């Protein structure tokens, strides 16, 4: 039992996951499955972004889908209307996400808790309205058609599903790698202190505003880049991308997988994506299944699948630790692994 648990939390598990990601196109039964997986990875990157501000830093940001749409529109409009190539537009999408995140952040983060959530809900809706109504800039309800795909530099063709899948996988791994580094670092611990309580964090000498804005900008940059990737694969986007439902989808992925954990966003996104695929014939009615499940999950597993697993394993390890008290090196090692970040 313990060996299984330890394996699931070990670095080897990450290599297994990576290998699974690389081998997936070989075992997938259709190109459609690979396409679905690539889309899931893109959403997972967005979920990782939300996890920074909401999971680690504890500020419920309801404008996340809006920033995702901004990233997608940045690529769409820059490539279609201004003739940019994909990659410069992709970088611009990240920069725009960061700059707008900063501007929204320095205002909205002055508010706390529910007020912040409601404010960002409004920001998300304003983004939606701007995209839908500002026709001169965004083409309004017509959307943006024939967006440039990522250039393959003559090596690969990213309009093909499989190369694009690997491209997205690359960015996903990069995204997770950066978060894993941040979450284990003093910067991540600073976010976590803010999540426990603003007052506590301040009493520990932490500058609230600076750190919250940093977390917010990181999250909107992730959202912008994820949106940019989406624009590069679907090649057609409309204002519905900025609808609040996408924000709630992302929050659902995060809650199911494990808020504030490293692997939670991936687990939640993949799980729900594939369950959704499986029950696609139910269409809207699938919410009858998802709704109650989510309620049960939030009540009994507030830290999601990964968080519950980590807590359970960590406590299990800790309860056994006194038995081998001399092994202080083992203990130190455990503390690094069993920490909050898994």
């Amino acid at each position, binding site marked *: 039992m313990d060996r299984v648990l330890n394996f699931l939390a070990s670095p080897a598990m990450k290599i297994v996951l990576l290998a699974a990601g690389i081998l997936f196109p070989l075992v997938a039964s259709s190109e459609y499955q690979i396409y679905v997986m690539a889309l899931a990875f893109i959403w997972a990157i967005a979920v990782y972004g939300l996890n920074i501000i909401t999971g680690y830093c504890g500020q419920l940001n309801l404008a996340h889908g809006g920033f995702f749409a901004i990233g997608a529109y940045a690529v769409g409009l820059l490539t279609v209307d201004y003739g940019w190539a994909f990659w410069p537009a992709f970088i611009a999408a990240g920069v725009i996400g960061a700059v707008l995140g900063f501007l929204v952040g320095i205002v909205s983060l002055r508010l706390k808790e529910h007020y912040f959530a409601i404010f960002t809900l409004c920001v998300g809706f304003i983004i939606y309205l701007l995209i839908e109504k500002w026709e001169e800039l965004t083409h309004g309800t017509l959307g943006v058609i024939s967006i440039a795909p990522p250039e393959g530099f003559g090596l690969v063709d990213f309009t093909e599903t499989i190369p694009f899948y690997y491209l997205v996988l690359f960015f996903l791994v990069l995204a997770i790698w950066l978060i894993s580094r941040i979450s284990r670092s003093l910067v991540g611990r600073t976010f976590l202190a803010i999540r426990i309580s603003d007052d506590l964090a301040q*009493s*520990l000498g932490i500058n609230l505003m600076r750190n919250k804005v940093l977390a917010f900008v990181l999250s909107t940059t992730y959202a912008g880049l994820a949106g940019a990737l989406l624009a590069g694969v679907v090649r057609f986007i409309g204002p519905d991308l900025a609808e609040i439902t996408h924000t709630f989808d992302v929050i659902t992925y995060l809650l199911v997988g494990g808020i504030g954990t490293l692997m939670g966003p991936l687990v939640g996104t993949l799980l729900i994506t594939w369950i959704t695929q499986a029950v696609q014939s139910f269409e809207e009615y699938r919410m009858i299944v998802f709704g109650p499940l989510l309620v049960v999950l939030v009540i009994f597993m507030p830290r999601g699948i990964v968080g519950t697993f980590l807590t359970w394993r*960590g406590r299990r390890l800790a309860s056994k630790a006194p038995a081998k008290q001399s092994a202080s090196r083992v203990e130190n090692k455990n503390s690094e692994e069993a920490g909050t970040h898994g």
Partner: protein
Amino acid sequence: MAEQPLLKISNLTKRFGGLAAVNDVSVTFEAGKINAIIGPNGAGKTTFFNLVAGAMPPSDGTIEFQGMDVTGMSPDRIARLGIARTFQTTMLFEQSTVLDNLIVGHRLRTQSRLWDVIINSKRLRDEEKKCRARAAEVLDFVGLSHLANRFILDISQEERKRVAFALAMATDPELVLLDEPAGGINPEETENLASLIRKMVRHGISVCLIEHKMDMIMSLADKIMVLDHGEKIAEGTPEQIKNDPVVIEAYLGSDEDVEA
């Protein structure tokens, strides 16, 4: 050199609308001492702490810490200057280990930014080592090294209080403000916490605490300030306070907390 008080409070006032939660309080606390603030519920004790720690700006009056005017400074700056605090309800990250909770305590003495994290700079690695070492040190100080890898979920209320002390200690403070450190724990544990507080003072940290447990206060404090309805009604040694008729009337004589 003339003795400079650690903390010099002059005419401190905090009004919420028409209510003066703290009203014209002047007091000095000396370094290396245990200072206690007592008073009935709603006397303004926690508000007084919040003002000293910078959690809210005073309506009037000044606060000088080590000769420096810190009135109206943000709480994180005040923390960096050397005032740490604990809260009435211990706030810790439950689903994490004791040691993990403490590492961030020394964050304010470090410089690493996001860029250091991305490139994994030497500064970051050194500072993380330093924070980890400091966490282990303060955990040892409060006598909980054996619980380093336990989850907060799995430790007792008294142990949590100690972890909160340790977290405050990790900031390298000159002065620690303890808000009801013995709230919700039994008499024996209270005695243990009292000795921990004495130990902090022996190690050069000055303490200021709010407490309802009279036995603890009377044996622990060097100096007591009594607040009632936001006003300072008495100040002195435990002996003086015990015999002060004003205090007896306003507080000891009329409040059931005495027995607590």
